[in-house]
């Protein structure tokens, strides 16, 4: 009972993290809901083994990213998914179309990256330090730095291509 209460509180506190990551790894709202449910399920499954050695957010980032990877690998193999009826968070004020456009463009750029880069850029955008990204992803800090600079170059190229169509 106590466990359930604590778990629910943690999920409520961090539902934004789950929303942001699941959106990166899915193309439609329905898929995002499926992955969202999957993440909550995986977190619940791993909750007992969470010993508190790391920060709760670190644990959530790790499991959410891992579940996203697993989801990508089995999405084509899904049988029947029982989807709960719930609303996803709304990242912008509905009237603010400019922000909406910029956010759509931002997600589109991230989605063009490969699976390794997606995880790293999301954590970077979340304001995590190289060391924190390294702890969550399992790469070394220097490797995270190298990869981020490659991502930066890649994003610049994508932007150029989108602007000039070449």
């Amino acid at each position: 009972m106590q466990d359930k209460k604590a778990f629910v509180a943690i999920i409520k506190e961090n539902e934004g993290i789950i929303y942001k990551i699941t959106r990166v790894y899915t193309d439609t709202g329905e898929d995002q809901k499926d992955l969202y449910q999957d993440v909550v399920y995986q977190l619940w499954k791993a909750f007992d083994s969470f010993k508190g050695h790391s920060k709760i957010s670190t644990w959530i980032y790790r499991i959410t990213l891992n579940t996203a990877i697993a989801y990508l690998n089995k999405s084509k193999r899904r049988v029947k998914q029982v989807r709960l009826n719930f609303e996803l968070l709304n990242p912008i004020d509905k009237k603010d179309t400019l922000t909406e456009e910029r956010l759509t463009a931002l997600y589109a750029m991230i989605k063009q990256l490969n699976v390794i880069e997606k995880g790293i850029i999301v954590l970077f955008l979340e304001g995590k330090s190289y060391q924190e990204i390294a702890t969550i992803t399992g790469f070394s800090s220097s490797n995270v730095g190298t990869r981020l600079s490659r991502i930066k170059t890649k994003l610049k190229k994508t932007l150029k291509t989108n602007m000039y169509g070449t």
Partner: protein
Amino acid sequence: MELEEMKTLWREMSVQIDEQKQLTDALIMDMTQQKYTQKFGKITTYETVGAVICFTIALFLIINFNRLDTWYLISCGIFTLGYLITLPILVLRSLKSIKSIHIGRNSYKESIIGFAKAKKHLLLIQKLGIYCNFILFLTCIPVASKLLGNKDIFLTGGSLWKYGFILITTIVMIFVSKWGYRCYKNMINSAENILKELED
């Protein structure tokens, strides 16, 4: 959009999101329960059913194996039997290895490596399956003909429609195999690229 600009936009979105609370206590617990009940019906259903069918046919073949009385029928029987037993086991083992990747314990990197390797392995088996299916098609006809109709197709021959059927099926299988091979090749390459990039 520069990286810093992306970061600012992301931060703005995070603030907006953090102000909202969509999930209720009941919904969160439903999510855990819902997935729990689904888990068992997922992933391996088709493969398990396929494996049971293969093993049943293999059992029938083993029981009646002594009725295959020439070297070529025995050869066809051995290949068919080997296929029916080996391939489903390899596929199920491969799926098991995908399922056994520990999401709760692994780092992101370990998960990517685990999935890419397991996926590559499964794809290689499925690619092998394409070739084997082709041979199986050719070996199971004489075996089935002998065991079900007691006819040695190599000696008695067959009707024109039977040859026509074999010819058309063979042509279709060649095209399907070529298409399948290309698909698997691309997917295996993509898994290999990810693994290669992780070595950098």
